[in-house]
């Protein structure tokens, strides 16, 4: 990790030596960027289809054999669910295999006092109490905290409860039922409870997405580094030449 950090610093120094106006570090590798956007699309499909499973469209007239609306909606939900779950497994793999930025949101340094100081400073910046935000190559500490607890764990919750509900339809001899439904359904009491919690989880993800998108747009404008373009190109650009605050 120290070696990788020095690579970042060397890249910055190199950029400075060449007199470039904006310094840049390559932080998000292609698999992370691809996962991010596939995951975002999957969440969009899941939230919309999931909502319409709970509150279906108005009734269609005619023969039942000439429609399959709920069937298609459920298919979209299950297909997107698999994409999200497999993508998440891949993302965990990449957290181990990728560069040192790839595992940042999985292991927030909660034992580090200076990191918590960073969380507080970032919170103050958001509350308009700090004059200037700190400069980060990776995620700022408040973002790491939010992504870990509100994104990662809620997604894990949704994958587990989602597969538990899916396993019910697949039947008691399916691997989904054995692996998920058989213990998750009794844990919550009964199937209806799991449905309700899965539904609440969707709204938690919606709230996270609102904050995530707002914060990304705002940071892109007012912080000292690039945010949105970084998730497209992989490069973090900086708007000043002072050293970053996350130890790089």
């Amino acid at each position, binding site marked *: 990790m120290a070696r990788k950090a020095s690579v970042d610093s060397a890249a910055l120094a190199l950029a400075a030596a060449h007199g470039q106006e904006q310094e840049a570090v390559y932080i998000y590798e292609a698999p992370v960027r691809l996962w991010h956007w596939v995951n975002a699309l999957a969440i969009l499909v899941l939230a919309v289809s999931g*909502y319409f499973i*709970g*509150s*279906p*469209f*108005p*009734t*269609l*007239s005619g023969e*039942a*054999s*000439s*429609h*399959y*609306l*709920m*069937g298609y*909606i459920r298919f979209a939900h299950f297909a997107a669910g698999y994409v999200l779950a497999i993508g998440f497994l891949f993302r965990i793999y990449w957290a181990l295999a990728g560069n040192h930025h790839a595992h940042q949101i999985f292991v927030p340094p909660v034992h580090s006092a200076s990191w918590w100081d960073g969380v507080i400073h970032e919170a103050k910046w*958001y509350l*308009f109490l700090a004059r200037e935000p700190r400069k980060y190559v990776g995620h700022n500490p408040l973002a790491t905290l939010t992504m870990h607890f509100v994104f990662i764990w809620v997604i894990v919750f949704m994958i587990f409860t989602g597969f538990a509900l899916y396993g*019910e*339809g697949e*039947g*008691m001899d399916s691997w989904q039922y054995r692996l998920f439904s*058989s*213990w998750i359904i*009794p844990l919550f*009491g*009964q*199937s*209806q*409870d799991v*449905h*309700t919690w899965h*539904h*609440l989880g*969707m*709204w*938690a993800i*919606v*709230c996270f997405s*609102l*904050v995530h998108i*707002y914060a990304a747009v*705002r940071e892109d404008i*007012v912080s000292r580094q690039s945010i949105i373009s970084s998730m497209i190109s992989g490069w973090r650009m900086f708007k000043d030449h002072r050293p970053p605050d996350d130890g790089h």
Partner: protein
Amino acid sequence: MLESFYDVMRRQGISRRSFLKFCSLTAASLGLGPSFNATIAHAMENKPRIPVLWLHGLECTCCSESFIRSAHPLVKDVILSMLSLDYDDTIMASAGHQAEAIVTEIVEKNKGNYILAVEGNPPLNEDGMFCIIGGKPFVDQLKYAASNAKAIISWGSCASWGCVQAARPNPTRATPVHQVITDKPIIKVPGCPPIAEVMTAVVTYILTFERFPELDRQGRPKMFYSQRIHDKCYRRPHFDAGQYVESWDDEGARKGYCLYKMGCKGPTTYNACSTVRWNNGTSFPIQSGHGCIGCSEEGFWDKGGFYDRLTNINAFGIEANADKIGLTAAAVVGGAAAIHAGVTAVKRARESGDKQS
């Protein structure tokens, strides 16, 4: 010595010749060789009928009412020839001390060799005073009868989950059987009531094979509780097509569309209603135009209205469903972000103004 199956058959007027024919026919239908005729005959002659104690706790007797309507097998065959139902205070002739003496007799004489069937559950508050049998709390009778039982059948949702008497706030602390008796094998046959044929089939299976049928993780027999009502519902094509009853007596209701939007709990209820049906296979709730209320599921009284698709969530006295809570939360977050954006814009404008001046 308890009566064997052979004794009972002879008592009912079946000749030995017919009995032996039955044994060879059974061996043939099971795919066994001719030498097994004698084995089956030996078992039928020597295997005693297992006595069954049927206790009634806090309940409404709907399980018994359902049980006596079984058509396949007829309940008279079950009671008179298959099981030795020695005690059931609702349908037995004797009463009072004479009846209670039977419980003691079975528990003492058939140690580890009788089945205890429990209808209803024991209330535990006030030392069990809310349900008194023969002058004593039911919970004491239950514990005594369970002490020497081979196995326990929990009839209905009362014995299995708690049912209406255990619904919030559960004033008598009615408690399902498996939380009171923890050292015996228990089979749950939930439903309010369970389907008659399911009840007699479970009893028949246990007595014939002297073991439980395969159970799921929650102790229910898989052969009747492994699928949801929804999985085998004859209205399922309308669900998949997106055709729902929107209000009672609308066009969809007349055409027999899916009752999903009317709060049908078929998608979350494990039972055999949509396959076995009720009253000799005549009908079941959805067939008669009403959604499933999920009566065989744990705590079904406390899962919001029978006519709501999304469960109401009780939080400090405010009732709302997941969508209302979620939309409110999203609106608050979205509003906060908008205000925050506004403040950010003003602050930036002011700062850039400072720099210029």
